[in-house]
């Protein structure tokens, strides 16, 4: 089972990102579960959402405490205290940042990959919504599922230019990260 | 014991099985109380009853209700002094109902439609009663005797019936055509009429007592009271009633310039107006009675009808009220003037009343003729035994004469009423006791029931509304021949009838039915006509008394449960 924690801010479509990822997994034929950190949501405040992806039915409803991957919807979240809590040593972090650089290592020794998701979104959608680009990057890095699964999931939510824009966007995002870089972490946990 | 329904629901109207009537301490009942108009009517009419029929739009029924008491409505509807209107409770609210005009309307409508009395001619074998005198009393008595299935032979001294109505009422008050047709209808109802028969001249009381089961005497007052001032009488003195009769029969009058009529009754006023109309320059009426008005009791007031007095003054008649004639000024046996003095009737010890003249209030009136109209007395001819030197017959309220069983009297001859409606009432009551006398049954003694008071009505349900006034001929267009007062239109009559409070009698207003909080007043039919169409549901009535309190007519009373 792969567990992912997505960090963002109220209003950034954080929960939506989790839902789309779970839906994509489901479209790919896996079992999945997505849920927000419970409680009242406030625009601008840091929020998290969780995704579980597995080959067998997921019955548990407890919180995700030890995710394999973090997705940060903006780089400023890097400085949020406890942001990497529960992330094991082999855990990986995907960050949205306009500054481009090669994969690097964070304060706690976790490998970090950065993509300019917001810039891309502005380019392809004309809106500062980084989440779909991040999802595309994540599944490319982890090889959890092919890009087509994400396309199907997006098709359930968007249509017309919004859909087409996103399709082009995720392919572009996918091209910007090394495919399968995080495969071994993704396959690490059997439960 | 019941089976509980699911969720404890109940079916429509099931509470009817609960008899909340058990709660009641008092119970509403329908209670009729006589309306004032009924109580005071000399003819014994119940105007409220026949006005109700008008309001219901049934004029025929209204007239038939009316003539159950008074056979001559077209006449009384013109000449009556209508005490009913003075007593009418509505007078204390805005203005009294125009009962007098309504009566006249019905009377005229009956004549126009040729309605007949709702009575059948008596059988030939039924007892026959002799009625002496074809005036209002005699006609009324004859009519009511026939209603009671008795045969009547009516003896009239003149060639036509009508009595004083014919001999002394000027046509501007009572058109002859109306008189003739009202009288004719009574006679046509089955009276055997014998004109030109005067008691004492053409027939005797003994014959009548012999030939008839009973005798009703209504001879009127044929003789003028003798009149003089300290024994002085002018040679050419003419009595008021004689003058009036002469004028009504012959149509001519002696030519005077200045006349003083002494008396305050209808004869005095009628004569004054006739003389004025005939062109007499000055017509004075001198009476110790008072002009009617506020603060004047009925016993002080002139006995003439108030509106007649008012019209007379309009026409120029000069009335000197509360005056007495102190002295006649005679030159060569003819009167040239008289001396008047202010007088007033004062109450003396023991409740006696006495007319007092006030010294220093004397004044002289120049006249060339003085006419006493101080009233009449019975012409004793042929009835000396009964009269025993009195001016009038001594009889009880029913017209019975003590120690003369089988003989009854009524009308002016009793000296009691002196009004046409009074005479009609006398005739009705006499017929009642005559029947009782002949059938050996008892008569319902006493007067009508307790009169309902203004305070007993609930006036919140009445809107103010103007009384319907009859048209009156303007003074300049008046003459002795044309009727002065007109009649109401049917529209006016209908509206006026709805002004009636229906005192003491159900007016079918639906108040009780509408306002009962316990839904315990029920209607027998969709549109009720009277109390008989409302029913109290005593199984459910809780006796709150709301219906009684809200009844506009004071027709519902709360009585203790037994």
């Amino acid at each position, binding site marked *: 089972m792969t567990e992912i924690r997505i960090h963002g801010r109220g209003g950034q479509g954080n929960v939506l990102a989790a839902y789309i990822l779970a839906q994509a997994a489901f479209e790919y034929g896996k079992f999945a579960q997505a849920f927000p950190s419970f409680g009242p949501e406030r625009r601008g405040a840091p929020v998290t959402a969780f995704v579980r992806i597995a080959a067998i039915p997921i019955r548990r409803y407890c919180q995700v405490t030890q995710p394999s991957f973090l997705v940060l919807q903006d780089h400023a979240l890097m400085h949020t205290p406890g942001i990497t809590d529960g992330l094991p040593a082999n855990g990986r972090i995907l960050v949205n940042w306009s500054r481009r650089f090669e994969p690097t290592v964070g304060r706690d020794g976790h490998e970090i990959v950065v993509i300019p998701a917001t810039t891309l979104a502005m380019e392809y959608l004309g809106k500062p919504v980084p989440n779909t680009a991040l999802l595309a990057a994540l599944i490319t890095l982890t090889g959890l599922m092919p890009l087509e699964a994400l396309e199907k999931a997006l098709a359930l939510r968007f249509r017309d230019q919004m859909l087409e824009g996103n399709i082009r966007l995720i392919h572009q995002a996918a091209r910007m990260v090394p495919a399968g870089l995080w495969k071994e972490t993704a396959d690490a946990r059997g439960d | 014991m*019941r089976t509980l329904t699911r969720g404890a629901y109940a079916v429509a109207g099931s*509470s009817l099985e609960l008899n909340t009537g058990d709660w009641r301490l008092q119970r509403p009942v329908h209670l009729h109380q006589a309306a004032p108009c009924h109580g005071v009517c000399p003819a014994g009419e119940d105007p409220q009853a026949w006005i109700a029929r008008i*309001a*219901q739009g049934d004029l025929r029924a209204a007239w038939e209700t009316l003539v159950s008491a008074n056979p001559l409505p077209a006449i009384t509807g013109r000449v009556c002094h209508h005490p009913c209107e003075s007593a009418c409770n509505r007078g204390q609210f805005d203005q009294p109902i125009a009962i007098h005009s309504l009566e006249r309307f019905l009377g005229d409508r009956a004549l126009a439609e040729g309605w007949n009395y709702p009575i059948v001619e008596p059988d030939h074998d039924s007892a026959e009663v002799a009625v002496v005198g074809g005036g209002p009393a005699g006609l009324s008595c004859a009519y009511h005797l026939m209603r009671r299935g008795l045969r009547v032979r009516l003896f009239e001294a003149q060639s036509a019936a009508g009595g004083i109505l014919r001999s002394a009422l000027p046509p501007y008050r009572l058109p002859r055509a109306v008189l003739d047709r009202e009288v004719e209808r009574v006679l046509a109802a089955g009276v055997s009429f014998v004109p030109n028969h005067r008691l004492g001249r053409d027939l005797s009381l003994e014959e009548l007592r012999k030939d008839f089961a009973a005798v009703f005497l209504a001879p009127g007052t044929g003789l003028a009271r003798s009149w003089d001032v300290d024994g002085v009488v002018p040679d050419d003195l003419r009595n008021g009633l004689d003058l009036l009769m002469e004028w009504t029969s012959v149509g001519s009058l002696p030519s005077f310039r200045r006349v003083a009529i002494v008396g305050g009754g209808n004869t005095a006023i009628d004569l004054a107006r006739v003389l004025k109309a005939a062109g007499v320059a000055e017509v004075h009426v001198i009476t110790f009675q008072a002009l009617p008005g506020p603060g004047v009791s009925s016993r002080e007031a002139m006995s003439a009808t108030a509106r007649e007095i008012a019209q007379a003054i309009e026409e120029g008649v000069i009335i000197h009220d509360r005056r007495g004639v102190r002295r006649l000024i005679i030159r060569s046996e003819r009167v040239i003037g008289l001396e008047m003095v202010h007088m007033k009737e004062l109450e003396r010890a023991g409740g006696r009343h006495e007319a007092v003249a006030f010294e220093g209030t004397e004044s002289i009136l120049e006249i060339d003729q003085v006419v006493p109209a101080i009233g009449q007395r019975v012409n004793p001819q042929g009835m000396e035994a009964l009269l025993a030197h009195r001016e009038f017959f001594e009889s009880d309220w029913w017209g019975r004469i003590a120690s003369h069983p089988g003989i009854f009297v009524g009308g002016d001859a009793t000296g009691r009423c002196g009004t046409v409606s009074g005479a009609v009432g006398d005739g009705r009551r006499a017929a009642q006791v005559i029947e009782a006398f002949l059938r050996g049954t008892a008569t319902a003694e006493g007067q009508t029931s307790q009169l309902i008071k203004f305070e007993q009505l609930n006036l919140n349900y009445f809107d103010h509304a103007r009384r319907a006034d009859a048209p009156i001929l303007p003074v300049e267009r008046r003459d002795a021949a044309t009727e002065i007062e007109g009649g109401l239109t049917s529209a006016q009559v209908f509206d006026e009838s709805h002004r009636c409070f229906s005192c003491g009698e159900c007016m*079918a207003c639906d108040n009780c039915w*509408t306002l009962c909080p316990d839904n315990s007043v029920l*209607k027998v039919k969709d549109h009720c006509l009277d109390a008989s169409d409302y029913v109290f549901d005593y199984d459910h009535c*809780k006796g709150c008394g709301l219906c009684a309190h809200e009844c506009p007519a004071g027709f519902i009373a709360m009585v203790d449960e037994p």
Partner: protein
Amino acid sequence: MAIEQTHDVNELRRRQPAFRGLDAGHLACQGCGQALAARLVTEATGPDIVIANATGCLEVFTTAWPRTSWRVPWIHSVFANAPAVASGIEAALKMQGRSTKVVAMGGDGGTFDIGLQALSAMLERNHNVLYVCFDNEAYMNTGVQRSSSTPHAAMTTTSPPGRERMGKRHLRKDLLSIIAAHHIPYAATASVAYPSDLRKKVRRGLAIDGAAFVLVHSPCPLGWGHGGELSIEVARLAVQTGIFPLVELERGSVASAMALRQVRPVADYLKLQGRFRHLFDGSPAAAEELEHLQALANHNIELYRLRADTPGARDSEGADTVRRGGLRWA
């Protein structure tokens, strides 16, 4: 007690000319104004309605199981929710494509106080419901406690007069203005003393498609301290003195007011009722309260322009005057 009935009353009931949705056998006090008012309302609505009734006297005295006095479908839920229950019924009937009208009923407790929130919401959503409030100016069902409809200075068990007090300290809540603020198509006040007017207003409220409100002044002999036979008399005086103006509001603004052609002094109204007895003890405080109540009536008379220019009838345009044959009862 058993009395020979002259007619078969049960047969007669079946043949009464007007429909009556509230029948006899209910357990209201003698002379209950509310029992009469409720029946008059049903006479105007006819049988094709559903009633949602708030808790209160009306509910208790009409429907003690296993019986009911109602002849129309009727439901009682709780004290505060009649308007919401009515809203639900209306929504259901609308979905069923039925034309049946919905009427909500409550006393002043259920309307002025505990049910006001639900009522306001029902009016705001403009449900096709006629709400009728039977206003007897206190909590009568629980034994006469003050409500926000209780008039100033009136005595109730929770606003008793005493050495320190002259009855209710506060003013009667101006509910009509609150209703008016909802801008609903039709609102009116009526009095059980004017049945034709009352029924006319119920018919108007029912005719319009949307929320309507009618406030019916209904005396309570027990709570007001007058004889049962005086219920109408007292209600009539409330109108004639200007204490309870009969008005109609269209979309919140005054469309008509029943004019008074002969305004009666408020004391005439007060002195018939035990709940105002303490105002006649001659004390200066009592005198002041009498003046206060008269001033409140005068205020109404000015506010709603109740004084009629035409003289004549004692009360008001001859509303509910009678005539032979009951022709004036609309």
